[in-house]
């Protein structure tokens, strides 16, 4: 089946959700939406759609398929948690939220499968529009401020990326915007155009991948959005940004400026890691705290791309596993908000006695996100560090180790505080908390399994993706 039919079905479901009259109807439509995704995955994996092209603008390649399957898994949990998380809200807000969440998921799906630079750009901009609506869900002053900033900075960033795409287009003699064709065309492109284009695109897309320089807007977005939506933004949307940058990075592999491109992305990664590590210590809000962890992890992935070699494989693997871990942590922190009605690090605590399963989920998540074995991130970070040592980049190895120590200290301190420090806030405990905590744990267990045993098909698919 053509991808456009699926897009039409997803959009129709989102539109129907917008006018649903009851929560039950919203839940049924969410079920329909996720079922369409399941049918799409089935057609991809078992009905010969994998590696084929749909229309002029979409290809079901390895990278798109891998990230799409991850998105579908995360979406399943995000929708379920959202239903519980927002169950007391007005139906108008409730249905709008789910409608926008469906649109966001659809736009991200489009980004994953787009085989054209311009289509990627358009769909990334579409994620800004959907995301802005989700951020403004609470309709409070802080969420309005965050939404305004998100719209403003993302739009400016995406406009800058558009300039880069136009320059890329000029370097390719205006011949094509298809990734495969561009790769050949750019091999002899004007080096100055290529360099400027890469800088502009990287800057613009950094607001989606949550790396330096426009990382702040992702942090604000995660802060303002309801926690389950933050799980989607911090994984699905961040992966969309990563994939958009990664596809551009691969375009430059045969160009004379590739070494320069790697240095730029390495510098970006190091700066993101520095920012992430330092702000993890500074923030007083658990959601912003998790967002800075995303900045830090995306920085590590960017460093992997920057050093090249096995680092590229490690970067892709890191992003894949980070999606499972971070979505689990955001869903767990959503339950924390349910119980404490806030995310203030200095005030809330004693979580281990209030919700044992949730506290264990958070502490296990802490171990896994910090890349302690059996975390899959241990594998990727070790590979990246090994590659920096092999390349003789001792300064980078030392800097990364130092920053990772700061990250370990900050994350352990904050999560242990939440579990054991005396609580100073009012509690709102309900029966659903434990059920949701178990459900969020599933994603984390999935990540740990990948850490212990990477299935051969996963290794092969990442091998193919990371081949430049």
């Amino acid at each position, binding site marked *: 089946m053509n991808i456009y039919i699926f897009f039409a079905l997803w959009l129709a479901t989102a539109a129907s959700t917008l006018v649903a009259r009851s929560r039950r109807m919203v839940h049924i439509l969410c079920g329909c939406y996720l079922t369409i995704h399941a049918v799409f995955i089935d057609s991809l994996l078992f009905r010969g759609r994998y590696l084929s092209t749909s229309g002029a603008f979409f290809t079901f390649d390895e990278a798109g398929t891998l990230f799409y399957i991850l998105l579908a898994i995360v979406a399943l949990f995000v929708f379920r948690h959202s239903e519980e998380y927002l169950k007391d809200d007005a139906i108008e807000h409730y249905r709008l939220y789910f409608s926008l969440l469906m649109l966001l998921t659809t736009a991200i799906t489009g980004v994953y499968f787009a085989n054209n630079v*311009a289509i990627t*750009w*358009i769909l990334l*901009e579409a994620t*800004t*529009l959907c995301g*802005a609506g989700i951020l*403004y869900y609470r309709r409070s*002053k*802080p969420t*309005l*401020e*965050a*939404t*305004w*900033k998100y*719209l*403003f900075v993302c*739009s*400016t960033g*995406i*406009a*800058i990326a*558009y*300039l880069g*795409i*136009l*320059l890329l*287009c*000029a*370097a390719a*003699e*205006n011949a094509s*915007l298809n990734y495969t064709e561009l790769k050949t065309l750019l091999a002899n492109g*004007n080096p*100055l*155009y290529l360099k*400027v284009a890469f800088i502009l695109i990287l800057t613009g897309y950094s607001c989606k991948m949550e790396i330096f320089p426009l990382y702040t807007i992702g942090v*604000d977005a995660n*802060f*303002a959005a309801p926690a389950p939506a933050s799980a989607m933004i911090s994984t699905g949307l961040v992966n969309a940004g990563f994939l958009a940058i990664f596809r551009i990075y691969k375009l430059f592999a045969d160009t004379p400026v590739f070494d320069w491109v790697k240095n730029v992305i390495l510098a970006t990664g190091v700066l993101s890691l520095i920012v992430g590590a330092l*702000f993890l210590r*500074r*923030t*007083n*809000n658990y959601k*912003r705290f998790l967002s800075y962890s995303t900045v830090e992890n995306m920085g590590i992935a960017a460093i992997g791309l920057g050093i090249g070699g096995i680092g590229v494989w490690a970067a892709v693997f890191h992003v894949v596993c980070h999606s499972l871990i971070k979505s689990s942590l955001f869903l767990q922190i959503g339950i924390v908000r349910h119980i404490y009605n806030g995310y203030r690090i200095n005030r809330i605590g004693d979580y281990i006695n209030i919700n044992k399963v949730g506290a264990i989920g958070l502490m296990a998540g802490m171990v896994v996100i910090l890349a302690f074995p059996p975390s899959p991130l241990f594998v990727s970070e070790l590979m990246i560090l090994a590659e920096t040592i092999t390349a003789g980049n001792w300064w980078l190895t030392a800097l990364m180790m130092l920053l990772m120590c700061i990250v370990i200290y900050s994350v352990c301190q904050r999560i242990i505080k939440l579990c054991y420090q005396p609580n100073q806030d009012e509690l709102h405990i309900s029966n659903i908390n434990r059920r949701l905590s178990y459900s969020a744990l599933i994603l984390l267990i999935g990540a740990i399994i990948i850490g212990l045993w990477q299935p051969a098909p996963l290794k092969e698919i990442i091998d193919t993706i990371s081949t430049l």
Partner: protein
Amino acid sequence: MVLTLIILYVITLIYLSTVERFRNYTSIIAVQGWILLGIALLQLHTLNWVELGFVILETLIFKAIVVPAILMNVIKKTNINRVSTSSSSSQFNSQMLSIAALVVSAVTTYYVADSRVHMLFFGVALYALLSGLILIVMRSRIFTHVVGFLVIENGVFLFSMAIGVEMPILINMAIMLDILISILMLGMFLTKVDDKIHADDSDSLTHVKD
């Protein structure tokens, strides 16, 4: 003729750094819309009627009429008239930066010179981009930030004409998104930001931070 319009466009950008009243900003945005319409008509005559109609619709209806009208509405609603109350030094800095941006754009254009890109358009688009960024960075009021964003969008439109003549899909897509985002931002500014956060200094937008 195109050269004349481009020079006029540059003049509006220089003027942008000297004005203080919001009405003048709105006028400049409207004038830029008309100039872009003229440039589009002269530059994109090779496009088919549908695509050309789309471009005209955007420049004339949207950039020259609708957006300035919304901006005027905001000015009336919020009763704010000036960029800043005590900004003589910031005014001077912004003018100096604008001149520096013009020089940087000219020098960059000289070095980037290539047969594949219309250099005049490239230079002016770059200047527009820098002018927009200067407005956003140097001025503290949210209204000016919106104007800065619109100036950047106009620069991007101009740049797409410098390169995208043979790729109308690019221009059309940029236009479509331009319309959507600008309307959303202006709509939000008009209906929400002013109600909950005063459309005054951007200092009032500093609560979400670490």
